[in-house]
């Protein structure tokens, strides 16, 4: 019980600095700070040589070129050894011809998993659930997604979130539901009555003073 309590005390939140780590990976020892200046998707999977995880790794590899165009790096993690990771990625390449180009943390002592709240004892006390942490170039957590063990992740949504975050940062706007690049964006709500009145004259597409959209 004490162990379970310990496992749920660390739950990082959006807007907080990403917990620092130094970890053994399939690409050598890596520190979080090695990724400074790039966006980073840190994601966990329950275990190597399992079916849903294999489909996810293939899918992450397929979107990797698109992520690189956006300045995003990928870093996987599970509570497995580096030898297991190496054997698995070699097996995936042999059987599916898909090369896994990104590093995977071998978190056998669960240090990173616990710091990032990746172990959800209600699902498994030993395996990480399917977490996605989107970390910005300043190493601040910008998005957290959790998926259950039985549900593989949606790569389109992960790419969409990256596009939305980068659009928000570049243009100081927000993005509406189901937004896709090229769609209209939401203008931040006004803080004063004067700003609310001025906004209605600015040629935005306004449903009302608090919901205005514009093209970029």
């Amino acid at each position, binding site marked *: 019980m004490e162990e379970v309590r310990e496992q749920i005390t660390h739950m990082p939140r959006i807007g907080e600095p990403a917990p620092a780590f130094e970890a053994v990976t399939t*690409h*050598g*020892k*890596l*520190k979080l*700070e*090695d*990724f400074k*200046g*790039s966006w980073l998707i840190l994601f966990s999977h329950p275990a190597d040589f399992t079916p849903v995880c294999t489909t996810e790794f293939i899918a992450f590899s397929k979107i990797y070129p698109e992520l690189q165009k956006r300045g995003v*790096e990928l870093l996987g993690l599970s509570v497995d050894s580096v030898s297991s990771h190496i054997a698995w990625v070699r097996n995936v390449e042999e059987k599916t011809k898909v090369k896994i180009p990104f590093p995977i943390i071998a978190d056998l002592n669960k240090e990173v998993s616990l710091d990032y709240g990746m172990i959800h004892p209600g699902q498994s006390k030993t395996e990480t659930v399917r977490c996605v942490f989107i970390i910005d170039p300043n190493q601040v957590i910008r998005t957290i997604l959790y998926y259950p063990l039985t549900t593989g992740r949606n790569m389109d949504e992960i790419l969409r979130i990256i596009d939305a975050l980068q659009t928000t940062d570049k243009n100081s706007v927000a993005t509406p539901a189901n937004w896709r690049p090229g769609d209209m964006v939401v203008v931040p709500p006004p803080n004063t009555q004067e700003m609310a009145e001025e906004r209605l004259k600015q040629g935005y597409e306004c449903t009302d003073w608090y919901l205005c959209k514009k093209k970029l």
Partner: protein
Amino acid sequence: MACISPDGKPTESGSKMLRALQAGLKSPEEIAKDTGLPLFRVRSGLRELTQSGLAKQRDDRYELSEEGAKLIK
């Protein structure tokens, strides 16, 4: 280690980085550009090369050590 193999010799990516340092002091960003390696790999690789005595750090830039220069001759 990713840049130094167990027999002490640099791996392919380690050799790439050492060759990039032949021209003199370089920042990790310059090395990443010269080698085509991702910046995170260059940063971790430089840590290994420095710890192994094959490269030296001067402020935010790196250069070959005597030992590193001998290795890539």
